[in-house]
């Protein structure tokens, strides 16, 4: 199943999609002031945020002046195009090391899907015949290491873990060292979930990243911020603070197989200019996709079938 199909099949069963809502308020077949006001509110329902909703509204108004928008299809065309532009504007593929091990660090708030995404990334690289080391740098949460160990086993990766409660920086250090000496292709560092509001935990994260950079110049090649697709406007705060503290280079939006369409991605790309690089569409190892701005925009306004 393609990402688009997957997203659409999710949308199918939600009672009122964005598309339906917009269609239902576009009754007069004309873009009126009243319609624009309502449109803004309806757009909010996709979690894109007030700012993006207003921008979309303004675009519709502008476009309407140029060429009288008369059908819902025309409206969706305009909005889809605009969302795709925003997302494409900052889009960038995943980086890899020109030579030697590639290191990805996954960061994010609690329960976003970091560990699972590591399993999925490992599956992808292993499928291409590459070797993978997982660093169990979440030494805090109950059974975090055991969880990662299951993913290591499933994907045929090596796991580097210390005792529970030990220094996460030391785990990352050991993993990078091991990768260098064994000529491993990819290191995936699993960090503990942390709220962006907790200064001490953000400092800990900085330290992990510093340690990695010291051991292997140029690393980490990606600091991937994992954001739950169901997240509301707080996602913007998360992205802002993680970007500042940890130098986030890309975002992965997870749980898009749920009923949420991950509208917060639009706000993040628009307001912070962070590229969305990956999306998670399920709990299995193969439920990871590269981000496709066009498909995402289309899914946001998709017709429920």
């Amino acid at each position: 199943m393609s990402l688009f199909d997957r997203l659409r099949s999710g949308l199918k069963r939600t009672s009122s999609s964005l598309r339906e809502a917009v269609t239902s308020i576009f009754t007069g077949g004309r873009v009126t002031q009243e319609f624009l006001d309502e449109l803004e509110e309806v757009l909010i329902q996709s979690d894109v945020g007030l700012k993006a909703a207003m921008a979309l509204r303004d675009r519709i108004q502008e476009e309407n002046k140029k060429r009288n928008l008369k059908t819902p299809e025309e409206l969706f065309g305009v909005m889809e195009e605009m969302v795709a532009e925003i997302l494409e504007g900052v889009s960038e593929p995943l980086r890899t090391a020109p030579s030697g091990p590639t290191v990805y660090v996954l960061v994010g708030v609690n329960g976003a899907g970091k560990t699972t995404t590591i399993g999925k990334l490992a599956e992808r690289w292993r499928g291409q015949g590459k070797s993978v080391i997982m660093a169990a740098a979440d030494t805090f949460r109950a059974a975090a290491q055991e969880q990662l160990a299951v993913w290591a086993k499933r994907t045929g990766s090596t796991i580097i873990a210390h005792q529970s409660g030990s220094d996460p920086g030391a785990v990352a250090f050991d993993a990078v060292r091991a990768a260098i000496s064994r000529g491993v292709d990819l290191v995936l560092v699993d960090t503990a979930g942390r709220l962006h509001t907790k200064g001490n935990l953000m400092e800990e994260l900085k330290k992990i990243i510093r340690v990695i950079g010291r051991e292997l110049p140029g690393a980490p090649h990606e600091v991937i911020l994992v954001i739950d697709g169901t997240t509301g406007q707080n996602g913007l705060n998360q992205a802002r603070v993680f970007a500042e503290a940890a130098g986030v280079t890309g975002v992965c939006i997870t749980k898009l197989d749920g009923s949420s369409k991950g509208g917060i991605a639009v706000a993040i790309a628009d307001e912070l200019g962070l590229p969305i690089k990956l999306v998670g569409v399920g709990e299995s190892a193969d439920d990871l996709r590269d981000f496709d701005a066009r498909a995402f925009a289309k899914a946001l306004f998709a017709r429920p079938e």
Partner: protein
Amino acid sequence: MKPKMEFEGLSARLAGVFKKLRGKGKLSEKDIDEALREVRLSLLEADVNFKVVREFIAQVKEKSLSAEVLESLTPAQQVIKIVHEEMVELLGGKAKPLDLSGNPPAVVVLYGLQGSGKTTTAGKLALNLRKSGRRVLLVSCDVYRPAAQRQLEILAEKSGAGFFTMDPGTDPAAIARGGYEKARTGAYDVVIFDTAGRTQLDDEMMDEAARIRDAVSPRESILVVDAMTGQEACKVAQAFDEKVGLTGIILTKIDSDARGGAALSIAKVTGKPIKFASTGEKLEDFQVFHPDRMASRILGMGDVLTLIERAQAAFDEKKAEELERKLRKKEFTLEDFIAQMKEVRKMGSFGDLLRMIPGLNRMKIDVDIDPKEWSRIEAIVNSMTPLERRRPEIIDGSRKRRIARGSGTQVQDVNRLLKQFFQARRMMFQMTPEKMGRLRLP
């Protein structure tokens, strides 16, 4: 780090509304609409579902139009007060405890989306109940997520609860039955079932949730919801409620800076109470849910509300008029003084309050009373004769000694009280009626 960015924006926005509407006397429909427009935007920013916002605003508008106009508040403040009251009501009024009545074991099942915090919450609930002396069994029905069973087992150890699960190849409903049996025969008071995360779109998994419920007939079916959830919270809660029949909600991760509008959405669409709030990763980080605090948080206006509440308490209109009348006649007795003190004592520091009032905030007033001193003051006044209370000037040395003896205090204490009284009276008498009129908040 700037965790409170959104929050500040909102306070500023509301301050803007206040300024615009300052000084107008009555609540006109236009005033209400203007204030509610800002409230609407702030609710949307707080992730309250847009449909819920619409209904809620309509409800508040109706109330506002028919509201009795309180002289001590500006129109904007009054609207905000109604908004807040309505929201508290919607969020469940008084906090409700878990229902653990009936024959033990009392059954609690936790449901929710992936990663919302179910397993951690199970551990927290267990610890909470253990503290009140109950025997708790934790049962893991999550056979999907890697190491989910082990995670709960560790939390059971930490919280002093028992633990039960079965081989991951087992049907979760069968595990639930096994867990219930163990709780029954093992004389546990409460048994808590942790279930796998699931999206409401997954029919198979939703059917499984219903089968788990049927296997154990829970007294409490709790939806565990992440406070950072966006607009979808409504649909999620509705779907779970339809499928398993929820009895309550637990809100997690409120230690984040999310405004938590999802709480309002869910409370509104399900009508189910929010019972607990989870405030961190550690098992101790768990509290009873406070609707009033949550309402202030969603509105992003904690401080403004306290101010309104304090102002109301302090300047009960009738009493203010009575005082004004007396001051005009230059009558201000120790009894008035004490009555005033009693009232402001409810609000903490008198000085604090006065400093909030424009015009008074620059006066030097030394009237703050240490709470410990309060009982002493009361004793002193109670030892006075009615005449002494009305005309404190007559209190001479021998009267002071008598009063001190009668109240079990020292003469210095009596002196201090009288000094404070005379100072307050002097200040009151200096106030012209125009100044009195300003004893109202902005």
